[in-house]
């Protein structure tokens, strides 16, 4: 997956303005339509204005749908901006990454055990060096393990975000515009 937070933010802001503009046009259009009933009244006008009322509600629904999708993008932004600005990751690769970390940790563990097995009394001239190496390896092991845990948490967090978004976006349903002109 690839997410550009900055670009999303800019585009969502532009979308917000476009929806506002659309709302204004919608209000103006149907205001003129409803005002027309004051100067047009004949055998056809009643049905026309009844249909316009239905149509107005349909159009209002599409504005609501646009607001919903904009809110979902807003949620995507607020979730992912805590992680970074440009995120590029393969969530499915989590187990592979963990496995590589584990292999590396095993190798460090092996080196630590070798260090431990060296009889320091036998090699007094390098004993301080071996002790230092041992301490260094222990530190690397702890840091790598911590990094692995944080990476796993990050993978899980992103997966959780994606699941939440999936739940919302898969429920998005657009009301179809039926031909309400029939019989006018």
């Amino acid at each position, binding site marked *: 997956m690839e997410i550009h937070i900055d670009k*999303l933010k800019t585009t969502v802001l532009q979308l917000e303005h476009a929806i506002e503009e659309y709302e204004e046009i919608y209000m103006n259009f149907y205001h003129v339509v409803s005002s027309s009933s004051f*100067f*047009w009244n*004949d*055998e*056809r006008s009643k049905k026309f204005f009844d249909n316009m009322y239905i149509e107005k509600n349909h159009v209002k629904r599409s504005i609501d749908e646009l607001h919903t*999708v904009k809110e979902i993008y807003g949620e995507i932004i607020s979730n992912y901006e805590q992680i970074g600005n440009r995120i590029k990751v393969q969530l499915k690769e989590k187990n592979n990454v963990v496995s590589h970390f584990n292999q590396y940790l095993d190798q460090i563990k092996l080196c630590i055990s070798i260090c431990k097995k060296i009889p320091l009394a036998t090699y007094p001239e390098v004993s301080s060096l071996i002790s230092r190496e041992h301490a260094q390896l222990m530190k690397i092991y702890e840091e790598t393990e911590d990094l692995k845990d944080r990476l796993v948490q990050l993978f899980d967090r992103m997966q959780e975000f*994606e699941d939440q978004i999936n739940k919302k*976006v898969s429920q998005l349903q657009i009301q179809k515009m039926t031909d309400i002109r029939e019989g006018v």
Partner: protein
Amino acid sequence: MDQFIDEIKLEGAIGKLRMYHKEESICFDSTIKLLRELTTHYVTENTIFFDTFNDEMMSKFRAIQMNQQTDIEQMEKTLSGYRETKKKVEKRLEDMI
């Protein structure tokens, strides 16, 4: 039923509706463009749902535009029908005089 048509006001209303209809068309184009752009900044397994939403929204915008076009034509038809009748009545009155 009390029937009436104010020719001038109806004509004015049609003019305004034509203008809003045109503005709306431009607004729809830019909205669709923005919706499509968003799916290029958010590429995940969920993007397909947004793509579907965008396609459906585009169809809906087209339907809204077509319906409103028909609404305006309906009003224009009423106005031209009224003008024709008015002309005939005026002609008949002239002939009678």
